[in-house]
C-alpha cells in the first residue's frame, strides 16, 4: 500500500481536501496538471519548466499520494478545487499547463474563470468529443493490453513503464491507484465532457495546444479540433513524441512554452 499524504504532510486546499504538492524553480507561477502517468514521470519536464517559472505540481485527489474524499468524483470538482487553490494563494498571471487528463481539468478551469490566469497550455489533452456517436475519438485505455497501451501512448514504447512483472512495487502501486482514479473521473462519458466543446470559446487568455505527432490515444486531428475551438489558440506538433510529450520530449516542450510565455 502507498502512504498517502494527510493534513500534516500535505497542502490543505478547500476544507477537507489535502493535496500532495511538489514545487520547482522560480519565476511567474505555473500550475502543472499531470495526466494518469502522475507527477513523478513528469518531474524532468517540471524541473525544466522551473527554469523560468515557479511550478506547482499537485497530484489530483485519487492520484499518487493525494487522498480522494468520497464526494469528490468529477472533473468539475477538480476544476473548482484548483480555482479555489489559486484564490487561496492569491495567485495571479498563472501559466496553466495541463497534460492529457490534466489538460481536461485545465480546460474546465479556463472556461469557468481566467481571472487568475495569463496563459493556457494544453498538451495532448482529452476532454472533448469532436466526432459523432459511432466514432471512437479517444482510444479506450481501459480496454487494451499493457503492450497496446504503451504502443499507443509513446512514440517509443521504451519510454513507457514496460513489463510490470519486473517493475518496482511502488511504481506498480502508483499505476494501479492512478488508473483507478482515471476510471473514477473519466469512465462515462468516456474521458470527456459533452458540453466542453461548446464553451471553449470562453477561454480569454492566449492558448497554446501542443500535440505529439505519434499520439495513438487522441490523434493530432483531435488536437486540431481542440485548438480550433479556443479563440486564437496556437497549435504545435512535436515529432518523435506520442501522447506524453512532457515525458518523451521535455526539452522541446519546455522550449515551446518558454517562447510562448514571452
Amino acid at each position, binding site marked *: 500500500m502507498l502512504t498517502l499524504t494527510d493534513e500534516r504532510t500535505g497542502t490543505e486546499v478547500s476544507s477537507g481536501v489535502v493535496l500532495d504538492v511538489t514545487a520547482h524553480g522560480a519565476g511567474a507561477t505555473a500550475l502543472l496538471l499531470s495526466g494518469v502517468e502522475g507527477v513523478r514521470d513528469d518531474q524532468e519536464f517540471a524541473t525544466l519548466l522551473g527554469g523560468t517559472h515557479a511550478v506547482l505540481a499537485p497530484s489530483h485527489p485519487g492520484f499518487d499520494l493525494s487522498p480522494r474524499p468520497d464526494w469528490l468524483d468529477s472533473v468539475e470538482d477538480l476544476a473548482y478545487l484548483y480555482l479555489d487553490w489559486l484564490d487561496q494563494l492569491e495567485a495571479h498571471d498563472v501559466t496553466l499547463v495541463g497534460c492529457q487528463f490534466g489538460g481536461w481539468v485545465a480546460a474546465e478551469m479556463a472556461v469557468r474563470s481566467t481571472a487568475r490566469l495569463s496563459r493556457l497550455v494544453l498538451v495532448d489533452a482529452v476532454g472533448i468529443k469532436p466526432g459523432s456517436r459511432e466514432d471512437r475519438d479517444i482510444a479506450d485505455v*481501459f480496454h*487494451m493490453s*499493457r503492450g497496446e497501451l504503451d504502443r499507443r501512448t509513446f512514440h517509443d514504447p521504451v519510454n513507457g513503464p514496460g513489463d510490470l*512483472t519486473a517493475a518496482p512495487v511502488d511504481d506498480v502501486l502508483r499505476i*494501479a*491507484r492512478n*488508473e*483507478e482514479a482515471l476510471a473514477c473521473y473519466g*469512465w462515462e462519458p468516456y474521458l470527456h465532457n459533452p458540453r466542453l466543446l461548446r464553451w471553449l470559446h470562453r477561454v480569454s487568455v492566449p492558448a497554446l495546444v501542443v500535440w505529439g505527432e505519434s499520439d495513438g490515444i487522441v490523434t493530432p486531428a483531435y488536437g486540431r479540433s481542440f485548438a480550433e475551438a479556443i479563440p486564437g489558440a496556437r497549435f504545435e506538433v512535436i515529432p518523435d513524441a506520442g501522447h506524453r510529450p512532457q515525458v518523451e520530449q521535455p526539452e522541446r516542450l519546455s522550449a515551446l512554452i518558454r517562447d510562448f510565455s514571452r
Partner: protein
Amino acid sequence: MEFWHFSETAYPFLPPAETYESIRVQLPTSLMDPDQAAGLWDRYLREWQLADEAGLNVMMNEHHQTATCMDPAAPVVAGVLARTTKNARILILGNPIANRKDPVRVAEEMALVDLLSKGRLEIGFVRGVPYEVSAVNSKPVMMSERMWEAHDLILKALTTHDGPFNWEGRFFQQRHVNIWPRAYQQPHPPMWVTAMTAPSAGKIADHGHVVATFLTGLEGTRKVFDAYRARYAELGRPAPADDRLAYAALVYTGRTDEDGLAGAEKLMWYVKANKVPFHHVQPPGYTPYFVRASGLRGERSAYDFQSMTLQDMIDNGIVFAGSPDTVREQVENFYRRVGGFGHLLLMGQAGFLDHDETVRGIETFASEVKPKLAGLAAAGSSR
C-alpha cells in the same frame, strides 16, 4: 437442505481458443449459429424442467457479451421457467444491480416474474463479474455503493403500496416510484446476495438476506460464512439458521465414481474455457488498487482455476463428483468444514456435457443423494 440445479447456458461450439483473444466481451457473434443456439435453449430449458420434475429447485444467472452464457436477461428466462416448472423455487442469482442503470425496472421485472410463478421467485443480487464493466459500460469504481443503493431502491419499490415515493440518490433518480404489478409474495420474495470475500458479508447479514458463495471452496466459503455469522452476533441476533447460507459448486453424480468423474471432467469446460485477458479480469477500481497491483505484477489470484486439476478442485470443495455415496460424503464433509449451510446450488451442466448426461446427473443426484442429505439441515424457506 435445499438443492438447486443451475446451468450457465453456454454456446460452446467455438473455434480453437488460440484463434481468439477473449471468449468474453469482444468475441463476434458471427461465430454463433442461430439454429444451434435455439436448439441449445430447447435443451437447457428442458433440463430445468426435468430438475423440477425430479424435486429440485432451479437457479439461473445472466452474463453479457460472452459465449459462456447465452442469457443476458435473467428475468426473461425466469419468466419462462415460471411457466415451465410447477413446484421448483426459481432463483435468479443474480441481477447484476451495480451494472443495471434502472433499478426500478429490475423491481418491476421481479414483481412480474413472481406473479407469473405464483410466488416461487427468489431474488438474488450480485455486484457483477469484472469482465462485464466494458460489456455493460459500468463504472468499476464505487460498484458496491451503487449495488446497495439499487438494492435499497428495489426493496422499497417492492414493499411500497400506498402510492408514489421519491428517490433522488447519489446514483439513481426517479421522482415517482410506484411499480405495478406488485409481487405475489408478501412482504417481498426472499432475497439473496452473493459474497466472494468476508468483507462483503456484513451488509448482507444486516438485511438478513441469504449469503451465497460461488466456487469459493472450503477455506474461502468458511471465511464468508464466519463473517456473516459474526455480524449476526455483533447485532445481538441469535445465530443464523442454515437457510441463510448458500454454496454453489460444480456437481456431477454418476452411477459409479468413474462415471461421476467423467461427467465432472466435462463440467471443467466452465473454468478451462474462460480465456479472458487481464484488462477484463481486473479493471481499475473493481478490486482495491493494491490487489490490482499484485495482478499487474503477475501474482496469481486465489480464484485462478486455470492451473487446477479436477482432483485439486474436488479436494478444495469446488467440485463434488463421483458415485452417489461419494458425492454425499463430499457434501457432508463440506457442511462440517464450513460450519453448516442450507442451500446447495449444483452447477450440473457446462460446456459439452450433453443433454442425456446432464439429465442422468440431475436424476441420480435427486434420487440417490438428496434423500440421504435430508438430515443434514432442516429444509426450510429462505425467509
